[in-house]
Structures are given as structure tokens and as C-alpha cells.
């Protein structure tokens, strides 16, 4: 497994790094303070091709892989983790699902609009009673003529109010728990769709999180993704990519925590010594750097495996579990090194501290990741040493 970057990947990394440090950094602080979604940033990202990273050329994308997406999300998150949310969901969930499960007609109709950034793709799975337990989904979809009628609501939907395309998992058969779900592609102007409650979150302030309401929402039958009953399969089949995406976001957050700790610790003096000259600081720096390297290796490995078409459910979950954990310890330690000023909005670490927290919750909680990993590990042992 080669985790070195190719020439091309280095070029992609340079472009997104330069963009993040210049264009994104110029607006990130204010956007997060005011809680505004940066339309022009997404427009620029789309123009540079970042909204169609894994989409093939014939549908208007650039046909690079998951690995390039990881580099992209990592660099964006080093500057603004909020911005990475929409880029991750759009690429690793929405684009991916349409590409993998959509009909040719659907791909031709929607992917060019999604890859060009004209339509931001969002993913609507969570419901008040269905979070980690996907099979508890209640939202109904009933076929009537050449339409499906959707009823119910989805909560905690990232960027839901800016969506051009919404991937919705709903129940087509109330009798069957796991096989009774289906996936739909909904457009915001389909009758009966509306945006509900807007959440006020602890972090990721420049990324909106909303409720989506479907009241007798009429969706063309052609917008069923795959076949009826494939909802669970589609929901679970997209998780690997989504988890690698959030691991990349956490990786960027962790890297900035270390960067800020070292830069601050070199300047700040107490008792006549720089903070980085105290052993207490040194140990934190060593732990952060080692954890970040390990997290990067896990995340890059998962991405490479996914690009090579290898099963990577365990590896994606390990990357997500570990990286989101060490991101939270890194922001904690970095803030500790900053001391009092780190607790103020004057210093970047305050925002990153808040942004890091949710990475251990969304896209599968750490508890769910452990469930996935242990299941896979036990399966491997079952094969090696049958009971």
C-alpha cells in the first residue's frame, strides 16, 4: 500500500492548500462568528473542480479518487472545518450514491449539475427516532401513479437549506424493517418540501444544520434510486466514504491544533522560558504529533483501499474512530498550552476546540465505529479459527 502522494496528488494538495490559506482564511473567522454559509467559497471550490472530485469526466467531474478528496478535506479543515462538511457530504455521499446506484438517466440529469456545484448535494437519513439505528426510519414513501408521495421529517441535515439535490432514505414497505426502505433523489422545488427548524450548534457555525419537512411531497417515480427496498443497502454502502471524509476533517482540525500550539508555545514566555522549553509542553507536542501521524496513516490507507476497490469497512471505521478521538485530545491539549487566551475568540484554537467535538458523533458515533470494527475483527477470527 503506497501512501506517498503522486505528482498529481501533490498538485491537487497545493491548489487546495493555497486556496484554503488565502481565500478561505480571509473569510473563515467572520463566517464562523456570524454563522454564515459562504456561498462564494463554494462557488470558487466548484469552479476549481472540487465539487466533482470523484465524478467521471463524462458527467462533468474530474475523476480523481477518494485519496484526492481526503487531501482536499484535510486542507480545508485546517482552515475551516465548517466548509469541509458540505464538501464531504456532497462528494462522498450525494455524488457517490447517484453515481453508484442511480440509473443512467438520473446520472446524466443530475451529476453534471452536482459536479459543477450548481446543485449542492445533501444526505437526509437521520430522524428523531432513527439515529445510529437506521432501521428505525419512519418517513414513508407511497407510490401513486408515476410519483412517490413522501411524508415525514428528517433532522440534523447538514447544509439542508442550501441543497439542490437531497438524497432521502424513506420507508416504502412498513412490513419489512430492513428491506422496506428505499432511497430517493428529491429536489427542493418538489411540491411539499420545506426547510424546518434551524439548529444552533456548539461548533461548525459556518455550516447550517436543519430539519427537512416532507408533507405529501411529490417526487417523480424516476427519482427512486436503484430499486425499492435498496434503501438500507444504499445507506450502509455509503458509510465507508462518509467516514473517511470525517476522518479527513478531524485530521485537519488536529493538525491545526498542533500548528497553533507550537507557534504559540514558541512565542509565549513564563518564568523566563518559552512554553516549548518546558517538558510539560514538550510531552504534549510529542503526543499530538505522533497521534496525528498515526491518524494520517490510517486515513490515507483507508482512502487508498477504497480507490483500489478493496473492502475497507473496518479500515474506514478505524480511521474515523482514531482520528476523531485524537483530534479531540489535540484541541484539548493545544488549548491547555494556550492557557487563558485559548479560551477566548481571539485565538483560533477556541473555534477548533468546539468544531472537533461533533466529529466523534456524526457520521456514526465512536460507539458505532467500535461496533463495526469489533464485528469485522470477530469475523476475521471466525474465518481463521472456526469455532
Amino acid at each position, binding site marked *: 500500500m503506497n501512501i506517498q502522494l503522486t*505528482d*498529481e496528488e*501533490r*498538485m*491537487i494538495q*497545493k*491548489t487546495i492548500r*493555497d*486556496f484554503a490559506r488565502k481565500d478561505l482564511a480571509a473569510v473563515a473567522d467572520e463566517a464562523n462568528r456570524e454563522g454564515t454559509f459562504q456561498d462564494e467559497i463554494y462557488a470558487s471550490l466548484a*469552479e*476549481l*473542480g*472540487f465539487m*466533482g*472530485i470523484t465524478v467521471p*469526466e463524462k458527467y462533468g467531474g*474530474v*475523476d*480523481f479518487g477518494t485519496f*484526492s478528496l481526503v487531501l482536499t478535506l484535510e486542507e480545508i479543515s485546517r482552515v475551516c472545518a465548517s466548509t469541509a462538511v458540505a464538501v464531504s457530504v456532497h462528494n462522498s455521499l450525494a455524488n457517490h450514491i447517484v453515481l453508484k446506484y442511480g440509473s443512467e438517466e438520473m446520472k446524466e440529469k443530475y451529476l453534471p449539475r452536482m459536479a459543477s456545484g450548481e446543485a449542492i448535494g445533501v444526505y437526509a437519513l437521520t430522524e428523531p427516532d432513527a439515529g445510529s439505528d437506521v432501521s428505525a426510519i419512519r418517513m414513508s414513501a407511497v407510490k401513486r401513479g408515476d410519483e412517490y408521495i413522501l411524508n415525514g421529517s428528517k433532522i440534523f441535515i447538514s447544509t439542508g437549506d442550501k441543497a439542490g439535490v437531497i438524497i432521502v432514505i424513506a420507508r416504502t414497505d412498513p412490513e419489512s424493517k430492513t428491506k422496506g426502505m428505499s432511497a430517493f433523489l428529491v429536489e427542493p422545488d418538489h411540491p411539499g418540501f420545506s426547510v424546518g427548524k434551524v439548529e444552533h450548534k456548539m461548533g461548525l457555525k459556518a455550516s447550517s444544520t436543519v430539519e427537512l419537512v416532507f408533507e405529501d411531497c411529490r417526487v417523480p417515480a424516476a427519482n427512486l434510486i436503484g430499486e425499492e427496498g435498496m434503501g438500507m443497502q444504499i445507506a450502509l454502502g455509503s458509510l465507508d466514504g462518509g467516514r473517511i471524509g470525517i476522518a479527513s476533517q478531524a485530521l485537519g482540525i488536529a493538525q491545526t491544533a498542533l500548528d497553533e500550539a507550537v507557534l504559540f508555545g514558541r512565542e509565549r514566555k513564563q518564568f523566563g522560558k518559552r512554553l516549548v522549553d518546558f517538558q510539560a509542553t514538550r510531552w504534549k507536542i510529542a503526543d499530538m504529533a505522533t497521534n496525528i501521524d498515526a491518524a494520517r496513516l490510517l486515513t490515507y490507507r483507508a482512502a487508498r483501499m477504497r480507490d483500489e476497490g478493496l473492502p475497507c469497512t473496518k479500515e474506514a471505521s478505524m480511521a474515523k474512530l482514531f482520528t476523531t478521538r485524537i483530534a479531540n485530545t489535540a484541541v484539548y491539549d493545544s488549548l491547555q498550552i494556550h492557557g487563558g487566551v485559548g479560551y477566548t475568540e481571539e485565538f483560533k484554537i477556541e473555534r477548533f476546540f468546539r468544531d472537533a467535538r461533533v466529529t466523534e458523533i456524526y457520521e456514526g458515533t465512536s460507539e458505532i465505529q467500535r461496533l463495526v470494527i469489533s464485528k469485522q475483527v470477530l469475523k476475521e477470527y471466525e474465518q481463521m479459527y472456526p469455532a
Partner: protein
Amino acid sequence: MKIIVLLKRVPDTEAKILINQDGNGIREDGVKFIINTYDEYGIEEGLRLKEKVGGDSKVTAVCAGPEESTEVIRTALAMGVDDAVHICDPALAKPSPFTIAEVLAKAISEEGFDIIFCGKQGIDDDMAQTQSILAEKLDIPQVNNATVFELADDLSKAVLNRRIEGGDEKVEASLPVIISCEKGLNDPRYASLPGIMKAKKKEIRVKNLADLGFNEAPSSGRSRVLKWLPMPKGGECKMVEAEETVDAVKELARLLREEAKVV
């Protein structure tokens, strides 16, 4: 219109520069290399000119440098440059501006040109000579430190501002012309993902000295680099410390008068 943009591979502006043991170059291990930042303004201006003039206009990048220069050439191609010539020969290790200008002149003549853009200087050697020697070799006018560039509608001449001490100088030049670019001329575009994808299929013509008709590296001119030295270290710093500030000030005044002899 045939537009040439020159580019040089240089250490990243953020790289820490250390002189190698032999004192004839820098330590390259761990150093990231980029397109000379002033050359990026040239690339951008070349691309804008092509977009404006349209037709069968073409932008060709010419780069003389080691094999590793491929990455910066590909970056230029990803920005939108159409194709590239890479002059690469072991005999061109650490070339002087004279040598490089001679070689570039030959390669550019073979390509044909109406206008040449380059950076006002390499951010590594800071010699700022190549473009002027090249203008002489090609026998064309040169305009250095351009901050504004416009081409007359009939494509006959260029009207430019060039940065001079305290302001700009407005000048006019006939074509063909070589223009060295100053910061502020434009805001160079990023290499987009579609650009990076297309760059894979674009041609880089690699030429060595023999391909360009040279038997050996052209003369390095009348100056010669003898040795590279590290930045001189700053003088010793003496900290004045005392329990009370007033005592420290007295001591500082005494040192300035008696030791430094400046007051």
C-alpha cells in the same frame, strides 16, 4: 499569437535555506520546490492574453532546469498553458544567466514567438539578468518590472506600466517583446482540478544541449560564482538585567557610552 512564458523551479518561499558542505549550492533534502512566484504572474498574463486574442493563439512554457522540474512544468500546464519545452542537460547544473539565456534564446527561436513573459527575477538567485541578456540575444525590446500590460487592438504594440522607485513609468513597446513581471500585475489563477486532469495529456518536449545544436554548455559570461556563504550571523546581544528598571536604564546608558561609544 505565439506566447512564450518562462519558468524556473525554485525553493518554496517558506523553505529554510542551508548551504551545502561544498559551498556550491543549497541542501535540497526536505526542501519543497515551486514555480518562481514572479514567473506565475507571467504565466497568468500569458493565459489572459491568449483568452483575449483568441484564434489560434497558443501559450508555450519554456523551462531550463533539472529533471525534477517536470512537476512545476505540469503545474503550469494545469494552470492552462498549452504545451512546454523542458531544457534538461547535466551540463546545465548551476548555470549562469549568460548560459541559460543563450540556451533559452535557441529554444525560443525554434518555437517562434510574438511575446515573451517571465518573472522580474528568480526568487532563489535574485540576479534578475536572464531576461535582459535574452532580449539582447533575440534582439528584441525588453520591458522590466511590468505592473500593467495591454496590447493594442491591432496587436502591433504593447502598452505597459513598469514599476520604478516611487511610482510607475508608462511605456510602449513594439512586438516581439520580452516582458518581466512584477507583483501586482495580476492575481495568478490556481491549477484547477480539470486543469490538472488535462495537463496529463499535454506535451512536454524535453531537449538536451545537443538537441538545441550546442556541443557544450555555452560560456558563463564574465562573472563566476566562487562560493556560497551562509547569512552572516548578527552581532552578540547583551541583555541588561537588574532588579529595578531604573538601574537597568542606568547600566544601559553606561554601556552605550563606554562600550558601544554611540552616545
